[in-house]
C-alpha cells in the first residue's frame, strides 16, 4: 500500500472526508452506547445538543476550548521548529502558580495594570520552564520529549508542595489550594453569570498574533527553517540555537497563559486539578490544526465540543461518562486520517 499526493483536492473532497470522519466516530460511539444497553439512535442529536444546542452548551464548549487554544498554540509553535514540547501541562501549572503568587494581593494594583503584569510574569515563568529542556537539548543533546515529559511530574509535585506549603490558603480549611485571586486580578466574564470569560478573547488574540509571527515575521520564518532542516538553516546563517531558545520562550509562554486564564478567568484559585490534561490535549489540538495557529482555534473548539457534547450525551443516554473521552479519541484519530486522505490517495500496490 502506498500514498500518492492528490493534485488539488476539490472543496467537496476537502469537506467530505472530515464529515465522513465524524460519521464514523458517531457510528463507533453509537455501537458503544448500544453495548451499554441504551438507545443508539439519538446519539448524534444528543452530542450536538450537548455541545451547541443551547447558549449554555455553546458557552461551555467555548469555555473548555479556551485553555486548549493556549496549549494548542504552544505546541503548534514549538512543533514548527521541531522542538517537541510535551510539557505544556507543566508550563500551564507554572502560569497558574505565578497568577496566584501575584494575584492574591501581593500587588495592589488596578486591573488594567495588574492583569497585564500577571500575564507577562506567567509567560516569563512558563518560558523559563521550557528554556531548561531547550538548553539541555542544544547544549547536551538531551531529548526534549523526555525532559519535558518528566518535568510534568516534577512540576506537579512542586505545585503540590506549594499548595500544601507557602501557597496554602489559610482560609481553605486545610485543603491543598491557594487563596483566591483578588477581584482586580480576575478576568471578567463575557456574559454576566456565565462561565465564558475574557480568557477566550485573549486566546483568540494570541492565536492571531501567533499566526502573524509564523507567517509574517522573521522569527516565524527562522522557526520554520530550523524545524525543517537545522543544518541547512545554520549554513544559511540562521542562528539555530538562538531560534530554538526563542521558540521555547514563546511556546512556554503561551502554555503558561492557559494556566493564567484558567485561574484568573474561571477557577479563581490554584488547585492540583487545574488541568485535566490540557497540556497533552494541546498536542492533539495543534496537530489537528496542522500546526496552523488560526486552525488551532477551530480545532480546540472542535475537541472541546466533542467532549462537552459527548459528556452531556452520556448523562442523557444513561451510559458511563467515560464515553466522552472515547469519543474525543475516536474523533481525533478518524479526523487526522480524514485530513490525510483529503491530500493523498491510497494505492494498494
Amino acid at each position, binding site marked *: 500500500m502506498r500514498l500518492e*499526493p492528490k*493534485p488539488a483536492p476539490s472543496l467537496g473532497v476537502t469537506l467530505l472526508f472530515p464529515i465522513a470522519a465524524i460519521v464514523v466516530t458517531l457510528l463507533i460511539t453509537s455501537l458503544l452506547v448500544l453495548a451499554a444497553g441504551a438507545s443508539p439512535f439519538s446519539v448524534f442529536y444528543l452530542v450536538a445538543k450537548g455541545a451547541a444546542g443551547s447558549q449554555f452548551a455553546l458557552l461551555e464548549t467555548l469555555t473548555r476550548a479556551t485553555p486548549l487554544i493556549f496549549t494548542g498554540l504552544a505546541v503548534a509553535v514549538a512543533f514548527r521548529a521541531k522542538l517537541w514540547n510535551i510539557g505544556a501541562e507543566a508550563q500551564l501549572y507554572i502560569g497558574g502558580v505565578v497568577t496566584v503568587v501575584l494575584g492574591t494581593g501581593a500587588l495592589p494594583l488596578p486591573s488594567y495594570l495588574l492583569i497585564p503584569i500577571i500575564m507577562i510574569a506567567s509567560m516569563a515563568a512558563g518560558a523559563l520552564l521550557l528554556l531548561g529542556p531547550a538548553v539541555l537539548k542544544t547544549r547536551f543533546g538531551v531529548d526534549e520529549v523526555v525532559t519535558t515529559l518528566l518535568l510534568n511530574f516534577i512540576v506537579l509535585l512542586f505545585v503540590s508542595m506549594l499548595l500544601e506549603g507557602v501557597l496554602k490558603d489559610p482560609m481553605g480549611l486545610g485543603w491543598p489550594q491557594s487563596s483566591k485571586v483578588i477581584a482586580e486580578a480576575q478576568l471578567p466574564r463575557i456574559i454576566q453569570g456565565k462561565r465564558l470569560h475574557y480568557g477566550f478573547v485573549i486566546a483568540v488574540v494570541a492565536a492571531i498574533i501567533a499566526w502573524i509571527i509564523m507567517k*509574517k*515575521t*522573521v*522569527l*516565524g*520564518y*527562522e522557526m*520554520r*527553517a530550523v524545524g*525543517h*532542516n537545522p*543544518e*541547512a*538553516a*545554520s*549554513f*544559511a*546563517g*540562521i*542562528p539555530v540555537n538562538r531560534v530554538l531558545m526563542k521558540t521555547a520562550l514563546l511556546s512556554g509562554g503561551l502554555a503558561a497563559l492557559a494556566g493564567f486564564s484558567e485561574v484568573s478567568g474561571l477557577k479563581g484559585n490554584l488547585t492540583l486539578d487545574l488541568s485535566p490534561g490540557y497540556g497533552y490535549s494541546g498536542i492533539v489540538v495543534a496537530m489537528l490544526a496542522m500546526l496552523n495557529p488560526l486552525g488551532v482555534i477551530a480545532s480546540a473548539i472542535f475537541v472541546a465540543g466533542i467532549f462537552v457534547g459527548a459528556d452531556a450525551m452520556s448523562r442523557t443516554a444513561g451510559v458511563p461518562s467515560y464515553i466522552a473521552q472515547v469519543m474525543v479519541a475516536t474523533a481525533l484519530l478518524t479526523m487526522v486520517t480524514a485530513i490525510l486522505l483529503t491530500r493523498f490517495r491510497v*494505492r494498494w*500496490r
Partner: protein
Amino acid sequence: MPQQPHPAASPPPSPQGGGEAAAPVLRLSGITKRFGPLVANNGISFDLKRGEVIALLGENGAGKTTLMNILFGHYVADEGTVEVFGKQLPAGDPRAALDAGVGMVHQHFTLAENMTVLENIALGTQSAWKLRLDRAAARKRISKLAGDFGLAVNPDATVSTLSVGERQRVEILKALYRDARILILDEPTAVLTPAEADALFRTLKLLVAQGLSIIFISHKLHEVMAVSDRVLVLRSGKLAGEQVTAETSRAELASLMVGQEVASPKVAEPKIGAVALELKSVSAAGQGSSHRLDGLSLELRAGEITGLAGVSGNGQATLAALIAGVLKPASGEVVVQGASMRDWSPRAALGGGVARIPEDRHAVGTIGDMSVTENVIAERYATARFSRRGFLDWKAAKNFAEEIIRDYDVKCPSPDARIRLLSGGNMQKLILGRALDPDPAVILANQPTRGLDVGAVAFVHRRLLEARERGAAILLISEDLEEVLALSDRILVMSKGRLSSPSRRGERTIRELGELMAGHGEGMAA
C-alpha cells in the same frame, strides 16, 4: 514476512551456451510512469544482453532514476512490463527483482549508517525466522567476493566511518552477495574521486567478464565512452536515441541529450586584483571524515579562480566549512577584504561578501520542504531588502525569487513550489543565483557541478567565469580534475590537510597533479 532462501541455493537461470544474443537477460517493454500530470517515463522499451554494459544518459530529471526504480520494484509503472531472464517481474516488488538477480546501487546510498558493513550486506539474505544470524558464513562470503572483485572493505566497520568510495563498494557487494546477474548503477561516480572511479571501472570489467550485465547512469560523457557498449539517451521521459558506443562521439551524445550542441565556455585572461580572502595559519578540527588543518595559509585574489584538487577526506571539507563560516578556526586568522574576522560565523562570512555554494545541495544547500522563495532569501532574509522591524517583506522576496528563476533559467512550477520538487540541476542553479546575486567578493564553490547534466554544468561554469570577470575571488573545490583544469587560473592540491605550492593554468600535467594528490611529488608546502 519475507522469506529469503540463501542466494546460493537458487542460482538465477543463466542462459548458457548459444543463443545469447537472442535471449536478452532483461527486457523493458513500453514502460510509462506518470507523477500527476508529469510523464516521467513515456513508453520506454529496450533489451539488455548478457555481459553487456548499457549507459543511460539524459538531462537532470529526464527520468533515468525513475526507470531504474521501476525495474527494481520501488515504483510501480503505470504501463509496461519488465522481464528478467524471460520471466515477467511482478510490479512493485523489490524482493522479486532481487531474487531474479537484479542488483541496484542507488543514486543516494541505502545504507544504515550505524550498522556494520556485514549487517548491511546480510540484511534480508537469511530466513527471517532463523534464531541466529549466521555471521561467520556471511563474513566468509563477503571476503571472497571482495577478493574476487577488488572491493576491499572491512566487514566489521561501521558504515558511518567509511568514505564515500568504500560505501559504494558496500553497495556493490550487497548486490553481488545476492548473486546479482544484472547490476544497475545510478550515477555511481558522481561522488567518487577519479581514482575511486577508476577502481570502480576495474571492478565493473571483472563483473562483465563473469557474465554480468550492467546498466550504468552517468552525466560524465568520458566515462560513458570508456565503459559502455551501448548508450541509451533519455529526453523528457522518452527514449531519444540509441547508439553503439564505438560508433558515436561525446559531442553527438551531448546534443542527443540536450537537443543541441553544448559549447564549452571560453576562458579569457584573468585580471588579477587584490587579496580578497586570506587565511593566516589557521588550524581547525577535522569535519566529519575530513582531515584536520594545521597552520594552513591561503590567499584568494580578486578576478582569479583558484582550483583546489585532492582526494576527498584530505581536508577540503574542513577548509570549505572554515571559509563558509560554519567552522571557527581554533587558531589563526581569517581576513576578509583586509578586515580580520573575530567572530567568524556564516553570518559574518555573508556580511564580509563571501558567497557559498555548499557541497551537498539537498542536506545543506536547501531546505527541502520550504518554497523556492523561502529558500532564495535564506542567506539574506534579515537584511533591509527583505525585512523591516522583524517583519518579512514577502513581496520583495517573491520578486527576488522570480528574478533568480528568470536570470538563472531555473525550471520550476512556481516560486511557491517546495524546492524538493526541483531537480538537482535546477536546485543548483537556484543556489548559484542566491549566492551570486549580491555580487560577492569571494565565492566558495564546493563541488558545484556534482551530478549535473552537461547543459547544467556548462551553465554553472559560465556563471562562475562571469563572476571572475567581474572581479570575484573564487575558490573552486572539485574532485573532477577536468573541471579544475578547465576553470582554474591557479591550482592547489590538498593532501593530509596541507596545500601544495600553487601552479598556474597549464603548468602541471594531470599526472603531476595526481602525484600531488597521492601525497608525494614535489611542491607539497611544508
